[in-house]
């Protein structure tokens, strides 16, 4: 299945990412999938403990293959029922043994709007300019290794 996700920003930016996807489901259904910790975990691939609440941190182990060593933390910032959900986290905080807690976080926002045929979900992650350049370069290297591993998995799977 393909997704109608695209960058909707006009000019290139190093600070933010914006994605928009149209889901064929009611706004309340999509809202539940995003703001119920258990349902969020099912599609995001993380085993979250506890529920989301403004000002509360929810943690959990990532279940995405290759990232099972990572514990993810989401500090929920704002919940406006069926319209807006936001949290802060450390982007790409996947290097074992690194304490990211003193580093700046990025803000992730989900914005829901009713649209023809379903619900438009806009996902914005911003604040990357505050992330140290060295950390960004490191994430890039990690990803290179990650992809090498994925290609090996694929080769094993098809042979």
């Amino acid at each position, binding site marked *: 299945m393909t997704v109608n996700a695209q960058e909707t920003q006009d000019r*290139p930016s190093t600070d933010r990412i914006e994605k928009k996807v149209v889901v064929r489901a009611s706004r309340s259904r999509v809202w539940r999938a995003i703001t119920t910790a258990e349902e969020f975990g099912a599609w995001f691939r993380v085993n979250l403990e506890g529920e989301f609440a403004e000002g509360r941190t929810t943690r959990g182990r990532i279940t995405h293959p290759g990232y099972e060593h990572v514990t993810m933390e989401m500090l929920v910032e704002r919940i406006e029922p069926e319209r807006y959900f936001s949290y802060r986290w450390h982007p790409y905080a996947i290097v074992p043994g690194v304490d990211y807690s003193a580093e700046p976080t990025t803000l992730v926002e989900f914005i829901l709007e009713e649209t023809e045929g379903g619900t438009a979900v806009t996902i914005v992650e911003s604040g990357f300019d505050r992330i140290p350049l060295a950390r960004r370069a490191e994430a890039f290297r990690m990803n290179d290794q990650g992809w090498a591993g994925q290609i090996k998995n694929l080769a094993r799977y098809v042979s």
Partner: protein
Amino acid sequence: MSRSRGAAAVNLTEAVTVFAALGDPTRLSLLRRLSVDGPVSITRLTEGTGVTRQAITRHLYALGDAGLVRNARRGRERVWELDLKRLEKAKRYLDQIAAQWDEAADRLKSFVEDE
């Protein structure tokens, strides 16, 4: 010439927000100069700024420490230029996180639609 200037301008657009994080107007204008003019000597960077050569030098080294600019010898003088490779890396980092969001959005869509 005009082509490389165009490329530098695009990188400036991407980079301005990075630089803004540094929160210093003098450094920001230095980076803008380097983006538009390409490699420039300290003497030329100092001209007409009302800032001392020593201050400009200090700012350039601060930017160099952040990996945003570098200096090279050109003929008899030393010139400063943007380190586009570092900026490019910052952009690729974002592309990679954007790709992860594409996949996550795809899974969200399947999760809600396939029930």
